[in-house]
């Protein structure tokens, strides 16, 4: 009460800044495991408080892993060798294989980037903001561009992480496979970047939370942490997000772009599951395993609760039109965002189960935040990219019917 009264008396910019600090503090406070805090903390300071990703200059992140050489070239991971073979056959050209000649009108009602009703306008009205028809289209454009920008930033992270992991991993078949993933990620950067600059003509700044995750992975010396973070968490969530957008968008170029990317990503997550299952079950001590289990849970929460699209808020509502708390309410209750949150986790949770990071000790925590219902879904190692696309097409059809 008192807090609110004091806040209310401050100018909007100051209020917003204080809210941002408090939110950062609450992220740190929520982390229960000291080891996890030690690994996420420094990155959290750099991202959430110092906004290193938004300082308008390139960011240097020091890597601390070591390159693992093997002069005997063992070939003892048939599943990875098979993925390598499939990856080579599945290459495509981001320039020639996509219909770039399609003109995209971000404000078109016929080829909507995001479905109508992505935002619940009633919630905005509740907070006293009325958007006319044109503004509704414009904010959807902003949101679509924001989302794709975060995909792009995530792909940059994936590109470097894939390269690092290729150096660090001890499976030789995995290294060969990893080389194809590096190419894949390069291509993803290429196509998302081109889509944003050619078609949507804007690029949003990297979201602070995404920055924190990327930063902490880059600077962690343990390859399996990089792997867990990138291949399982970030890629797993991205795969869910790509899938949702794929089945919801009416823009044909974006749809085809996402379809291609999903086929690649399905391989990446599959590889992540295969490699980590091997490592977690055979190499790690129980306490090391537990640390990863906790880390994965914290990161999952960070991703679930904290992707609030503040960059879009800054563009549209900062400076007094809406408070950050009101905006959070709008985002949390946006039907489109809800779908995203759900589908994202439907891909992630089964993968964590498959690699052995969902032991009974952590289940109650997942249950508490409502993520346990995805336990029964298929893991990436049981799914193919084609199967995933077919699934998405089926659900989209069902929804249309």
């Amino acid at each position, binding site marked *: 009460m008192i807090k609110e009264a004091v806040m209310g008396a401050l100018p909007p*910019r100051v209020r917003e*800044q204080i809210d941002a600090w408090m939110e950062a503090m609450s992220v740190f406070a929520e982390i229960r495991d000291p080891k996890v805090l030690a690994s996420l903390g420094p990155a959290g300071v750099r991202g959430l*408080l110092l*906004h290193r990703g938004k300082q308008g200059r390139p960011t240097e992140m020091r890597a601390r892993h070591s390159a693992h050489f093997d002069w005997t070239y063992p070939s003892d991971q048939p599943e990875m060798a098979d993925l390598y073979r499939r990856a080579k056959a599945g290459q495509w050209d981001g320039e020639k294989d996509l*219909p770039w000649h399609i*003109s995209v009108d971000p404000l078109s009602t016929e080829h909507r980037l995001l479905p109508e009703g992505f935002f619940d306008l009633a919630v905005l009205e509740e907070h006293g903001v009325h958007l006319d028809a044109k503004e509704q289209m414009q904010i959807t454009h902003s949101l679509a561009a924001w989302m794709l920008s975060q995909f792009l930033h995530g792909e940059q992270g994936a590109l470097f992480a894939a390269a690092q992991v290729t150096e660090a991993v001890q499976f030789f078949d995995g290294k060969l496979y990893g080389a194809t993933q590096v190419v894949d990620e390069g291509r993803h950067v290429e196509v998302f970047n081109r889509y944003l600059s*050619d*078609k949507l003509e804007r690029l949003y700044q990297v979201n602070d939370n995404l920055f924190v995750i990327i930063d902490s992975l880059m600077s962690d010396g343990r390859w399996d942490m990089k792997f867990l973070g990138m291949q399982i968490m970030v890629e797993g969530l991205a795969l869910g997000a790509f899938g949702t957008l794929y089945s919801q968008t009416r823009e044909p170029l974006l749809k085809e772009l996402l379809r291609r990317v999903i086929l690649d990503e399905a391989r990446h997550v599959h590889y992540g599951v295969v490699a980590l299952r091997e490592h977690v079950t055979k190499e790690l001590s129980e306490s090391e395993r537990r640390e990863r289990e906790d880390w994965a849970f914290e990161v999952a929460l960070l991703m679930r609760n904290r992707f609030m699209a503040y*960059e879009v808020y800054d563009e549209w509502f900062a400076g007094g039109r809406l408070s950050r708390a009101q905006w959070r309410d709008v985002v949390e209750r946006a039907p489109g965002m809800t779908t995203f949150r759900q589908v994202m986790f439907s891909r992630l949770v089964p993968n964590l189960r498959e690699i052995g990071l969902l032991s009974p000790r952590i289940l109650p925590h997942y249950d508490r935040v409502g993520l346990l219902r995805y336990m029964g879904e298929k893991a990436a190692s049981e799914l193919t990219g084609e199967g995933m696309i077919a699934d998405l097409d089926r659900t989209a059809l069902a929804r249309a019917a």
Partner: protein
Amino acid sequence: MLERTFRGLRRDLRFFLGGLVAEPPPPFLVRHRPVRPLEGREVRVDRVERPALDSVSLHLVDRAGEPLRFRAGQFFTLLVEVDGQLLRRAYSASSAPGAGPGVEITVRRVPGGLVSNHLVDHADAGQLLRLLGPSGSFLPPEELDELVLIAGGSGITPIVSIVRDRLTRSAERTRIHVLYGHRSGELAAFASELAALAKTHPRLGLRLVFEQPGGELEHAVGRLDRATVRASLESLGALGPREGKKRAYMICGPVGMMDEVRAALGEASVEPDELFEERFASPSVASVDVGAAKEPQPLLVRRSGRSRALVVAPGQTLLEAATAAGVEMPYSCTMGGCGACRVKLVEGQVTESEPTCLSASERASGQILACVARPLGPCTVEVERP
């Protein structure tokens, strides 16, 4: 080193304090699509009119708000997607330059024509299209005493642009004669507009010749054959002795009609340098890769003493390969219609989608059009013009 750290710390502090001390960083950066020349510029259909049965006029404006500059008589290349295929067609401007921010092009239904049928049936305001150009040298000389314009069928579009353009110049004295032939008054786009203009502008003379009798407009019945052309021009007073007057004859229409007109003018001893022709032939899609190599082929591009080696992928034209590799080559219409992309084939062989605008003598001297040429094997070309 120390200073770098210090500056870094200061930046960190500023961003930590954020909204308290400074403007927040911009939420996004504006990106500009890099120029990918062969894709042309993006235009929006601002308005659609149907000037006659089976014709549609599209008013196009640049999507980025840039004015579209061209000269009366020039054409644009429209890139249209039909059934997932990107097709190119040339259409003359029918509006006068500067009459608005954009350009009007008029499309007439061609039996079996993929693009024309698509546009006539489906063109609608708000659509986005891509446009290349302007191209073409069907331009009347500036200083003239008499301008004789002869159009058959959809050949009327550049002619209308020229008429509209000339009539806005109030200080000009040039007499303009228009002879326009078509199958019927119903199909003849712009016929009534021309008739109205002729009533209000004494320096414009008009003669309409339709194959079918009837309709509201005054017209002769027949086709533009040699005798009719001659008789009509005579009645317009556009064929008499020159008497030191400067005259130009401009013809645009189907091939058969152009032959007749040329013959009629020859009989009336019109000089070749008084004659301007525009011939339209849209490339047939089928002719695209007749005999072209199925393997990538090396290409050497020489230009002012320097050369660049590149590779032409199967199906690519020389121009596409060069632009994709960042080698600049002149071009305009990209469909063999304007000659801007002429290069000399020094070595090797190519196949070109016909018809093109190359003259027999240009062909004989080894010139090819890079925009429609596909290599049959390794090639070397020389870009001769600036």
